[in-house]
């Protein structure tokens, strides 16, 4: 198991190497170079040269990369040109709402999807199954920001049960905090829910045809026991993978949904930074989100071992 963890960690090195190269280079593909695009069209050649020097952009590109990665490894993501604070600080201030939103969305998705998926598999071929699958197909075709707009229209104009904009810190009270995140969470979580429902269903169907399910029934277990204890535990592995993958989509989607519901998260930060051409912030946010995504998938991979004894032993 330990060897497996080590091997898995080692495999991340080339991935992260490529990620840093890509994010580093993004700054350098700006037309005319970053300094020119930061300063705008009216800037003189001297001003540009001055800023280049200030930002260290006049050094050889390999050197710039090495020094950037060196700083990143020490947790220094550079400074925001616009906000007069470090990028790391800005990210820390904006990460909370995004994470809260992503967690609530994931929670909503799982709470809807897994029971529906199991039920659809159990009732396969019936009207209930077809209806659920139809809804999930539709759900997959509605992007989060669009659902956000629809929900806003519905709740802002017709039903006024929930706030349609703004954000309250957790310190303002749990319910107050959650209340502001329900509609954004729903907008964000629905696609995931659709995806996970389908995944759960097909994974359950695969398992329900296996012999040990028949064994479980022949023992006299209740159907609920057969489904949950014997089938779902086995069907869970592929579902777990999807959960990990979709969490990346959630963080991504949060960026878009935040802008609709005015949530001061990483999405707001990155969008504002685009307008201000604050490249180091953009770089930093994308890097942190990527690390989060990669980290979560690593954890999921290791969790495999905990769920399936065969993986624990078989993997070298």
């Amino acid at each position, binding site marked *: 198991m330990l060897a497996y963890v080590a091997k898995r960690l080692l495999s991340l090195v080339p991935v992260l190497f490529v990620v840093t190269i890509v994010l580093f280079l993004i700054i350098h593909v700006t037309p005319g170079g970053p300094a020119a695009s930061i300063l705008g069209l009216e800037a003189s050649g001297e001003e540009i040269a001055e800023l280049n020097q200030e930002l260290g952009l006049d050094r050889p590109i390999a050197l710039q990369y090495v020094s950037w990665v060196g700083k990143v490894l020490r947790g220094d993501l550079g400074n925001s040109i616009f906000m007069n604070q470090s990028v790391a600080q800005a990210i820390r201030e904006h990460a909370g709402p995004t994470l809260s939103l992503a967690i609530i969305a994931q929670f909503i998705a799982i709470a809807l999807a897994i029971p529906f998926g199991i039920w659809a598999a159990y009732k396969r071929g019936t009207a209930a199954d077809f209806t659920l699958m139809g809804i999930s197909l539709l759900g997959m*075709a509605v992007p989060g920001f669009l659902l956000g707009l629809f929900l806003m229209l519905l709740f802002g104009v017709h039903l006024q049960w929930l706030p349609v904009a703004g954000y309250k810190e957790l310190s303002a009270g749990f319910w107050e905090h959650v209340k502001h995140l329900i509609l954004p969470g729903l907008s964000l979580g629905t696609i995931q829910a659709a995806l996970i429902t389908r995944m759960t269903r097909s994974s359950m169907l695969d398992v329900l045809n296996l012999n040990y399910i028949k064994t479980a029934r022949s023992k006299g277990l209740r159907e609920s026991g057969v489904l949950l204890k014997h089938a779902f535990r086995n069907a869970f592995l592929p579902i777990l993978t999807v959960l990990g993958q979709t969490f990346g989509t959630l963080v991504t989607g949060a960026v878009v949904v935040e802008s609709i519901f005015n949530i001061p998260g990483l999405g707001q930060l990155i969008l504002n930074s685009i307008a201000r051409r604050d490249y180091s912030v953009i770089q930093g946010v994308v890097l942190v989100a990527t690390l989060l995504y990669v980290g979560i998938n690593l954890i999921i991979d290791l969790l495999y071992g905990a769920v399936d004894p065969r993986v624990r032993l078989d993997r070298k």
Partner: protein
Amino acid sequence: MRREQRSLAIRRIGGSPAFVAGAAIFLLLAALALFAPWLTSYGPYDMKVTERLNAPSGTHLLGTDEFGRDLLTRLMYGARVSIGVGLVVALLSSLLGLLIGVYAAYYKTLDHVLMRICDGLVAIPGILLAIALMAALGASALNVVIALTIVFTPNIARVVRSSALIVKEQTYIEAMRAQGAGDLRIIWRHIVPNTLSPLLVQASFVFAEAIISEAALSFLGAGVPAPEPSWGNILQASKLVIYKAWWMVVFPGAIIVLSVLSLNLLGDGLRDWLDPRVKGKRT
């Protein structure tokens, strides 16, 4: 025999209601985009200050926007941009993905390099990478195509590579090599044709994803810039008037959902049709 199988296959996919519905809806949308100038008497940029934010009516079937432009007309012209971007992204990333995937599968050293690059690109959440690229490149339809192609190519390359690897391991490829067939011939005559089915399925999903992504980017103001209409930037404008003009949200939203749904149905139909397991059952 081959021809019989093929006609049987065509009849099968013709019999899949999901595929037929998907194809029909999508062709309809594409026709609206293509024939827009003949279908509407308004121009996409014709403003009429007196008719701002009019609700749907006989003169403006889907209402007007904040500048008094006809929404239906803007959606039809917007379809050219949105579907166009999606189509070009799907084609470009398929082509690049095919080249990368096939060559990576065939040459071991190249495989290590290319697949590590793909792993890295895939590790960055899609829209964030696109946003970062758009921030650097600047907002324009062409740059949306470039950014989304970079985002989606690695996915396709992986799919192509894994099916190319399966073909490459087959004994008949070994036999061809023993008979002195060149690499180029083996790759293009024997490996590439076998990767086309999964590629086609994947491309239809990328098409749908690209339409969503373009809409999201434009909605955020990092995609196709106004006044050129795209489904995403029409929605961006609608956000400001959401409580005054429901039609500005509902119709662009519906058309996006419809196009994505139809492409997904099409892709599902293709997959069921091309899936070797389903095929195995038939013979």
